[in-house]
């Protein structure tokens, strides 16, 4: 059964890729390419569900491939299966959506062949990452995933900025790979690369080596996940890619970083000293806060969403970091709570971020702009997209009863458990994280009021937005599936938590903590630290929402409604220029966090030539300082360029110099040979 599903998965992706390679044009071609991806993802989803429900891993080993490091070893355990489910969750709707979305490339502005090929291979390699059971298989699939996604990013290579985005993406991802490679190799300690051997060899490593492995892999996976300050590729690459690819990258691919962190830190290394968790927690908090703060300043819809991915990865890491800290102190139930919170947020983020990117894609599809300042009023022409985007916005803002809330609630709960920690210094991390997490979610809500409000509400700010049209059915279906997932995941935390509880059982010595939770309609944390029931909250809201108008009707409330002009203090006509803009919406926060943004303001006023009392135009420009670019990346790049310029001088063109090198090295080595 599992074997068959696996074969279906691999062959469907491959067939999809082949169809793409043979052209993949026209609605049939695009449909077939998408079909391959959908079947592949579906089979993967089924396989993963099978593994999780049955609890028995799926294994497959091909020793003839990659014989240098133990062959291609595949093993899908529940943890991998969980992430495979996330892939399925993101891939199925995105592929359906992509079938419609990629129609815009039929005019030859991008290669449909490359897009379809890379998309299917991307999904395949990403799926296989979760299967990898030895180091080389893992790295190979990891790199395959990065490479194919790079080509996906480069789809619209003619657009300005895409090439730059591609470079940054590939560079960051490769630096990540180098770190991973280093980490894994230290972990292998000269032995075999099979994960089962690594678990045993990890125990024999020295504490310093273990910590080195942890740091290297954390940074390596973190660069993929988009932790601050390694996040800078996200806001470049995600907007550049086609939207369904952005959805996959942001919704699914960066989660592989989370998978890797869990796999290595928890599973292979089996946990470590408390500062590991502290680092994860700290990085998570900072990522969450900075992610959302930068998102607030963004007016490019997709860049905004990309920064929110940084934020949500931060939230996930807060949960995981808390879990790691508890794990260190042997507080397994609380540890499980932290991990469950993190993982739950992972799958939730996959659903709502994919949904939001697909929504942004629909907007882009209809208006050809991502600049929020040129959008507006789309809710009238694109009601479905607006509804789906609204659901996504509410979910990402952690509004009950949607899924974002359920997981943030769990993360909060695990942090609140922090007062049980025996060491006060460590325990004090928790309230700080609580504060940052709360600020983050508040700012996220503000940001999505901006994103949804400026994009979809009020009057259209440009010609394009005015003539927007609803996206085709396939795109709506893709978004609809994800919107349902957002609602469903929000309403069934009891089931999801149970599943995740099963997934993490046994990792790093975590016991089966499922019994510590109650799993009826209420979600109850261990020791009844907190309880809630999102289905009941939903039900209650629904009942009240129904009852309120009903009672109002019964009480004979005046039900008349008259349409009129917007009240604007009596001004003659309302135009879009009078609306609040995204910039002005974010202005208070820009001022409040000016220390961070260090905004530059540039106001130019043109006066009428005859009189300085008549202003002709005012140009206002304000930019925020890109902190990390300026203080982290620029110095490194400058250093490299400086070194490069020095090294270039070696090759100065003079033959005498070249011969002199030979003599000098000869003399040095001869003297060395004589005396050393």
């Amino acid at each position, binding site marked *: 059964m599992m074997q068959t599903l696996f074969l279906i998965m691999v062959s469907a992706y491959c067939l999809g890729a082949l169809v793409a390679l043979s052209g993949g044009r026209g609605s049939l071609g695009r449909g077939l390419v998408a079909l391959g991806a959908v079947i592949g993802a579906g089979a993967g989803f089924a396989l993963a569900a099978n593994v999780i429900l049955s609890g028995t891993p799926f294994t497959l080993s091909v020793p003839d491939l990659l014989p240098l490091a133990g062959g291609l070893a595949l093993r899908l355990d529940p943890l991998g299966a969980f992430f495979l489910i996330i892939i399925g969750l993101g891939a199925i709707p995105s592929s359906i959506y992509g079938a419609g979305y990629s129609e815009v490339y039929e005019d030859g502005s991008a290669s449909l062949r490359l897009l379809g090929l890379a998309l299917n291979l991307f999904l395949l390699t990403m799926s296989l990452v979760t299967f990898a059971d030895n180091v080389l298989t893992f790295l190979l699939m990891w790199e395959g995933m990065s490479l194919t996604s790079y080509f996906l990013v480069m789809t619209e290579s003619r657009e300005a900025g895409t090439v730059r985005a591609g470079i940054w993406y590939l560079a960051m991802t490769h630096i990540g790979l180098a770190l991973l490679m280093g980490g894994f190799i230290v972990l292998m300690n000269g032995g075999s690369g099979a994960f089962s051997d690594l678990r045993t060899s990890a125990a024999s490593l020295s504490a310093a080596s273990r910590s080195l492995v942890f740091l290297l892999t954390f940074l390596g996976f973190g660069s993929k996940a988009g932790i601050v300050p390694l996040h800078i590729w996200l806001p470049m690459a995600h907007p550049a890619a086609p939207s369904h690819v952005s959805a996959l990258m942001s919704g699914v691919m960066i989660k592989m970083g989370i998978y890797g962190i869990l796999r290595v830190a928890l599973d292979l290394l089996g946990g470590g000293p408390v500062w590991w968790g502290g680092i994860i927690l700290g990085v998570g908090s900072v990522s969450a806060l900075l992610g959302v703060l930068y998102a607030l300043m963004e007016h490019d819809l997709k860049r905004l969403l990309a920064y929110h991915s940084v934020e949500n990865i931060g939230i996930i890491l807060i949960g995981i970091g808390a879990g790691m800290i508890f794990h260190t102190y042997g507080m397994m139930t609380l540890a499980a709570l932290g991990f469950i919170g993190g993982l739950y947020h992972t799958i939730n983020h996959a659903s709502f971020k994919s949904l939001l990117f697909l929504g942004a894609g629909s907007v882009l599809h209809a208006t050809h702009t991502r600049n929020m300042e040129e959008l507006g009023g789309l809710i009238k022409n694109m009601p479905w997209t607006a509804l789906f985007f609204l659901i996504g916005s509410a979910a990402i803002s952690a509004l009950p009863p949607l899924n974002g809330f359920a997981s943030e609630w769990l993360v909060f709960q695990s942090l609140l458990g922090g007062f049980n920690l025996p060491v006060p210094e460590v325990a004090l991390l928790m309230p700080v994280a609580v504060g940052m997490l709360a600020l983050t979610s508040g700012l996220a809500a503000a940001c999505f009021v901006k994103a949804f409000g400026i994009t979809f509400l009020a009057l259209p700010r440009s010609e394009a937005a005015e003539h927007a049209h609803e996206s085709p059915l396939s795109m709506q279906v893709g978004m609809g599936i994800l919107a349902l997932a957002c609602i469903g995941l929000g309403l069934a935390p009891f089931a999801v938590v149970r599943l995740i509880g099963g997934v993490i059982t046994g990792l790093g010595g975590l016991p089966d903590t499922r019994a510590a939770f109650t799993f009826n309609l209420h979600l109850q944390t261990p020791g009844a630290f907190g309880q809630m029931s999102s289905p009941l909250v939903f039900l209650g809201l629904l009942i009240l929402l129904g009852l309120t108008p009903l009672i109002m009707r019964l009480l004979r409330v005046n039900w008349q409604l008259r349409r009129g002009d917007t009240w604007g203090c009596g001004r003659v006509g309302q135009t879009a220029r009078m609306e609040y803009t995204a910039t002005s919406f974010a202005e208070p926060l820009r001022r409040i966090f000016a220390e961070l943004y260090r905004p530059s303001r540039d106001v130019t006023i043109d006066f009428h030539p005859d009189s300085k009392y008549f202003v002709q135009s005012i140009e206002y420009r304000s930019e925020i300082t890109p902190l990390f670019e300026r203080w982290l990346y620029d110095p490194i790049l400058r250093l490299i360029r400086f070194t490069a310029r020095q090294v270039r001088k070696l090759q*100065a*063109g003079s*033959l*005498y110099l070249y*011969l002199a090198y*030979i003599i000098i090295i000869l003399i040095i080595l001869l*003297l060395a040979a004589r005396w050393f």
Partner: protein
Amino acid sequence: MNDPLFSQLSTLGSSIVLLFGIILLWRKSLHAYIDAFRWQSVVLSVMLLITGTFSNDHELYAVALFLFILKAVVIPHYLERMEKRFGDHRELQPYVNVASSLILSGMLVLLAYVITRPLVLISDLPTRSGIPLAMGLIFVGLFVLVTRKKAISQIVGFLVMENGIALLALLGTYGTPIIVELGVFLDVLLGFLVMQVFVYHIQTTFESIEVDQMNELKH
């Protein structure tokens, strides 16, 4: 003749060979370079003959003959032809002036002594005391290559270095096996011919055989 005499002779010969190498550094005209090289080669062939006699190694006679023909006759001939054609009789302007060159070459010979110390200690040949001189000559040849600006002077430097190697082989091992020796001669000849061809090319393309103007290709 007995061993001490042979030892004396070989050291003397090596010294003379090295001296011709150092003379190069002192002289300033291409013509003098070629002359020095020619005489050096002559001394080297004589040494080969002597060594052949002492060690009863008849292959060395053949080697000596080859060496003489190649390095004392053929190559100097071609060098002179080139010199006549391209030499502008101006003094060579080395990168390092003569005084410094001499001091540096002295230091290089000293370095050769230091480096070849184990060789001298290990070897039981009567010729062993000349080994440092041979190594010194190799260094001096390299030094000429690095500091002299004309293509022809570089060729001479290279040939001097080759002589140094031949001397080293002679003093250390009474010459390498004949097949290698023959191959080496062939290579030297071919290499010289290629270089010669290139000197023509350089002259026609750059209108001068000053090598230091060839620094367009960089970075």
